[in-house]
């Protein structure tokens, strides 16, 4: 399958005199907002893979994500939506998984080293589920209270912040133990599991919640590692 794609792109590069065509042929579009964590999750994967893409801005303030034509791309009215040729997807973690598999041989490998081994893949899958079920609901509430509410002129509810920080602390204790055994959450290499955390972690670093990271040495190192990656820097611009 990958071979066919290569041959097609060679023909096209001859006819259009462009050696950049193999990348441009991907025809990837992201419909989202550059400030939204879920959009950023997808942008991270695309940057890690050195893939060209077009970001079509969806104006969240205007409610553009709750109206047509966006609703035809995602009837649940959430950014981002995604296109790769004739494939149309939404849900950021489904999109990143698709990118990681479809473009496995280029850019950073976002899958475990032995990705064809279901047992190794399962370890990464657990980490992705933990991010989605244990980390993200709590961490996102903290971003909502401390970042988004401030931005729109509402007051942070410190009682909620305290409650959610207590929950996040317990999750990060498990991460601390895990990161004592392994360099990254799913093993010795950077994978989708780590990537999925980055956008929300970046927002939390701008809040007092940052202390929960700095108090835990291995978590602190991991945060520094994953946020200094070139792709992680690109999404902040």
């Amino acid at each position, binding site marked *: *399958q990958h071979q066919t794609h290569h041959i097609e792109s060679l023909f096209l590069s001859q006819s259009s005199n462009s050696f950049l065509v193999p990348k441009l042929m991907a025809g990837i579009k992201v419909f989202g907002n550059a400030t939204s964590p879920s959009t950023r999750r997808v942008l991270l994967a695309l940057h890690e893979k050195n893939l060209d893409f077009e970001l079509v801005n969806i104006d969240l303030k205007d409610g553009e994500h709750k109206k047509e034509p966006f609703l035809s791309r995602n*009837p*649940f009215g959430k950014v981002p939506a995604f296109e790769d040729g004739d*494939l149309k*997807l*939404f*849900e*950021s*973690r*489904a*999109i990143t*998984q*698709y990118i990681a*598999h*479809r473009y496995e041989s280029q850019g950073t490998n976002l899958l475990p080293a032995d990705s064809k081994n*279901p*047992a190794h*893949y*399962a370890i990464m*899958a*657990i980490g*992705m*589920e*933990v991010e*989605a*079920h*244990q980390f993200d609901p709590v961490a996102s509430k903290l971003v909502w209270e401390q970042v988004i509410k401030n931005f729109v002129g509402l007051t942070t509810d410190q009682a909620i912040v305290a409650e959610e920080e207590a929950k996040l602390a317990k*999750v990060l204790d*498990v991460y601390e*133990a*895990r990161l004592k055994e392994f360099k990254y959450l799913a093993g010795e290499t950077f994978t989708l599991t780590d990537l999925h955390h980055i956008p929300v972690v970046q927002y939390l670093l701008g809040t007092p919640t940052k202390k929960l990271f700095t108090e835990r040495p291995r978590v602190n190192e991991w945060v520094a590692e994953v946020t200094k990656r070139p792709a992680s820097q690109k999404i902040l611009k």
Partner: protein
Amino acid sequence: MEDQKMKLHCGFIFSNWTAMFGLHEKSLDFELVFVDWVAGEARTKTFLSNLNPFGQVPVLEDGDLKLFESKAITRYLAEQYKDVGTDLLPNDAKERAIVSMWMEIDTNQFLPLASTLIRELVTKPYQGLATDFTSVQENKEKLSEVLNIYEARLGESCYLAGESFTLADLHHLPPIHYMLKMEEEGVKDLIYSRPNVTAWVEKMQSRPAWLKTVVKGDHIFELMKQRRMPMQLDSPCQEVTGLAQKTAMVTENT
């Protein structure tokens, strides 16, 4: 090829049904180890350090491999045992992406609402706690909007990700099964007022693997009901091996 059977550490909650459903679809033998998480058996030091540091069931043991999170478990079963039983994941990358998408929709759009209803209307009464009916009403309304989208989708194809039953469909049935048992007004109707959703649910309910899952799931529920005293959820983390030994149920899967 397997010297020892797989073990599924299992308790009273629909995600356990999902893991069992996956095992049955794959016609895999497993040993069921009952974990009374409501009584704190998933928070013992042993459980946290050996099985799941987040103190939750289900946990699957396959040889040395220990897996938790029901979607990681079912995905592992689908790939490791691809050539056995029902094929639960397509090979093509684009088709697989659609399955992933509907599993994410389950996690992010459907399950938060359905699991809140289950917690308020099933788990809390069992624990002797008061139901928050405002929350129930809110979640019923949001779930109705979500199910409109499912209704439209299931008008386009037999199953969520296409014409075949996949993991995406499998994950929805256990919470829906719990919803259909609720006496609370309007909950069953969320499903039954939507013909495409109803047809989809009924097709899945007739699967032999599901029928086997219901038998096991009901048995676990009966074990829970037999306990006279409602237990506190936040009991201190302590060794309860004595209790675990008395109540652990090991059944053979036939």
